[in-house]
């Protein structure tokens, strides 16, 4: 059978592209090798973090910054999608809501989210379970760690927080769930869904706080209880809400080392939506090449998990295969490639550059990728191929804080055109 639109990749860009295409009544298929970066992310949608003219200062309004960016860097992926930018973010919020998941925030302002390291990150949309009402009014911060859980360290979190929220008293708490092996994020998030376990956690927090002279009467909105971001396994989980209402304080889960439960929530919510809309999936399948006729791709060649090859007939194709992690780009000793269509890959900043690993200008290799025109078409001469997400050249998601924002906006536009 023939699909109107075939999307390669099931990261954020591929899923949004498919969602948009299916909303236009296109018969849509996603072919995907792996899961993409989404389950590793914090679950926050970064759109644009810092000011174009002063990369040390947080951007107050990402949308305005991106307009400024487009004026001075017309090759940036955002410059190709200015026309649909706010609309694409609304679209994302709408489909998430449809799956019972919600993100707070908008494209017109940024917010600050605390991390498991005790640093703050700037982002546009965040899961409710990460949002703190007002840093300045916090009087007490309680950081809750778990015995044999290797990825959250209350004292480190609290000490680093001193530069961000100096006024609040800070108290570490350690929960013992009496488990004799390493507890991983996935396991912990499942455990916390259980009423009895959650009650045990609550109880231990209260007892330990009492030892610090904190009694029930102190529990109010100026108190923030911080756990690692493991507050429930499912996207619609009520764990954070339950803790909030039981304690009558603010409660958040802070993102840290992958795998990330909030990242998985986002992925699951999108997946639920797509399946409901009738988008088809071929998981564990890799697109390895194509057949062209008269300047159009007609068939994709697909290798499935048992190494059997199939061909898939496509009306148009959206390449959303990601950067190096996803496999949309690969690097050899002396060159970079786009392995499916052999599109030219440009590496704009390379040539002997020597910047520190962590720096404001970011690592050059993240800016490598394929170049596209205003319709997100990478190749002159192929009319029905579009590219979206981190495979695009010239963006630098790590230093710009723009990853999922670019994926949403370019995916949306590709899905509108394909």
């Amino acid at each position, binding site marked *: 059978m023939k699909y109107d639109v075939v999307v390669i990749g099931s990261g954020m860009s591929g899923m949004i592209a498919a969602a948009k295409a299916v909303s236009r009544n296109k018969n849509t298929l996603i072919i995907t090798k792996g899961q993409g*970066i989404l389950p*590793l*992310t*914090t679950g926050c949608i*970064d759109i644009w973090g*810092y000011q174009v003219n002063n990369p*040390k200062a947080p951007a107050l309004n990402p949308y305005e910054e991106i307009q400024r960016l487009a004026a001075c860097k017309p090759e940036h992926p955002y410059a190709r999608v200015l026309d649909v930018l706010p609309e694409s973010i609304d679209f994302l919020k709408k489909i998430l809501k449809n799956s019972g998941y919600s993100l707070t925030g908008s494209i017109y302002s940024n917010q600050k989210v605390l*991390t*498991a*390291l005790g*640093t*703050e*990150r*700037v982002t546009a949309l965040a899961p409710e379970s990460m949002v703190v009402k007002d840093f300045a009014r916090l009087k007490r911060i309680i950081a809750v760690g778990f*015995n*044999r859980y*290797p*990825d*959250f*360290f209350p*004292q*480190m979190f609290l*000490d*680093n927080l001193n*530069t961000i929220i100096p006024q609040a008293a800070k108290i570490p708490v350690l929960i013992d769930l009496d488990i004799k*092996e*390493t507890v991983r994020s996935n396991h912990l998030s499942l455990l916390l869904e259980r009423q009895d376990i959650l009650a045990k956690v609550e109880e231990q927090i209260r007892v330990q706080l009492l030892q610090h002279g904190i009694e029930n009467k102190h529990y109010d909105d100026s108190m923030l209880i911080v756990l690692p971001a493991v507050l429930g396994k499912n996207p619609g989980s009520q764990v954070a809400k339950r803790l909030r209402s039981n304690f009558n304080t603010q409660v958040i889960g802070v*993102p*840290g*080392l*992958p795998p990330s439960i909030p990242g998985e929530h986002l992925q699951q919510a999108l997946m639920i939506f797509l399946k409901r809309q009738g988008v088809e999936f071929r998981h564990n399948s890799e697109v390895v090449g194509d057949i062209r006729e008269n300047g159009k791709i007609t068939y994709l060649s697909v290798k499935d998990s048992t190494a059997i090859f199939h061909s898939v007939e496509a009306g148009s194709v959206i390449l959303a295969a990601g*950067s*190096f*992690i996803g496999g949309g780009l*690969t*690097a*050899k*000793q002396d060159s970079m490639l786009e392995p499916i269509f052999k599109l030219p890959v440009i590496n704009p900043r390379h040539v002997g550059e020597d910047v*520190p*690993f*962590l*720096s*404001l200008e*970011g*690592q050059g*290799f*993240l800016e490598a990728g394929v170049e596209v025109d205003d319709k997100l078409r990478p190749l002159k001469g192929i009319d029905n191929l579009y590219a979206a997400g981190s495979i695009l050249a010239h963006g630098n*998601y*790590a*230093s710009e*804080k723009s*990853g999922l924002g670019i994926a949403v906006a370019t995916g949306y536009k590709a899905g509108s055109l394909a």
Partner: protein
Amino acid sequence: MMVVNKTKVMVIGGGTTGVGIIRDLALRGIDAVLVEQQDLAHGASFRFHGLLHSGARYAVNDFSAAKECIEENIILKKIASTCINNSGGLFVQHKTDRDEYIGEWLRGCSEAGIEVKEVSIQNVLNENPAMSRDLKRIYSVPDGIIDGARLVWANVYQAMEYGARVLTYTKLSGIYTANGKVTGAEVINTLTGQKSNWECETIINAAGTWADEVAKLTGIELNVTKNKGTLLVFNQRLTQKVVNRLRIPDDGDIIVPHHTVTILGTTSVNTDEPDSAKPTSGEVQILLDAGRELFPEIDNYRLLRAYAGVRPLYAGNGEVKDDDGRDISRDFRIFDHAHNGLNGFISLIGGKLTTYRMIAEKTVNYVCKTMGIKKKCQTAEIPLVDSKRLLTMDGKVNKFAVRYGIRGEMIQKYLQQNPEKEITLCECEDISFAEVEEVASWKSTNNLDDLRRKTRIGMGTCQGLYCSFRSLGSAWNAMKNKPQHPLRQLVCFLEKRYKGQKSVLWEAQIKECELTLGIYSTIFNLERVEENSEV
């Protein structure tokens, strides 16, 4: 007022040579202190190949070196067994290697007392299927694999137990003399800037690549050739034994499996900048080209990192033969600067890791003679970790004693008190929370990078992706009281790990690097923390 400390002998330099000397002095009961400008083993001793030479490599070109190597090889396997994997080594002749060399080589080995046996190519290929089919002959030799960092620390822990003092991040800044004789030294703590004075009778300059700078403090010129060697680290064990190329020593001749990785090296080029020696992409290519002849699939193995070490070579008496330094004997020389009119100041240049104990013995023998001390060397008899401590109650080898020498006991104790800390912190190298937390609390651990050299966190596949965050977090209370701000330590750690990956950023390694950036830049926003606060 500056405090004045007293000792008899001060040793400069915390590489294998320096720690060998401090151990030797301590075992003879001579009061001594060692100062090292950075962490121990930060110079060549940690950035080397990990090969315990049998001497076979030198059998043709440097007979005395070959002899010394095999003698020390046997001694070290006895006294430093915890730091050595007695794997054995192979010398393989590729079809492009000259036959004439073999006769000479066999003769050299036999005269030096190196046990060589021809082995069946088929058997070797069965055990090491990744090896080339283009091999003509293979010989086995008693090479071994040695963990440089463990060796250094094991020497130091024992020396300290015998009363020696060891000061890391301490740089010699001045030498006091009176009447043509050393009377003391001024040292400076490189982390705090604090200075202190020492009275001493003898200073032994074992500063390796930096030995000329040390000598210059007294106005004495010392000729040290600095020779850079680049090595590649692969993410798996390509062989079980050390593999050497059976030919006149050249680039990329030696392949050493090490813990979970394999190290291929080395190149050889003289350099003027020992502090900033970096592998070049040309060197990486040279090594891959050489490695490909023995391991045809080498380009398909995941390359973790490339690094460069600098060897100090003796270059006196116009013995230098050519530009790449390989023809200079790497044997060591003792210089008594009494010849320059300064008594009590001795410099050492050269030497190999395999012969570090013997160099120390000869040096300390000499120093004893000049100081009129009559005490016998015991370093060849007393093991670094005695069997009582090495074996558990039920006769098994105690893994903490292997990793941490006599300090393994402290880890054991910490674990008994905190049994929940048995869980794994670093999956790549199988290191527990207990190890990291205990080692972090030691005074000689000043930052995450020091912790890495002692525990091997960050050395495996993930190159610190998970374990740098976890180490900092679990040992937070110790790490936050170190001289360097803990987040600064984290940034430096990641930077150093990146430095090694930079010249091999392709295939799987660029993904790993993107992931590390995703975590520390995208998730933790670490580059901005740095900019905005006074860390």
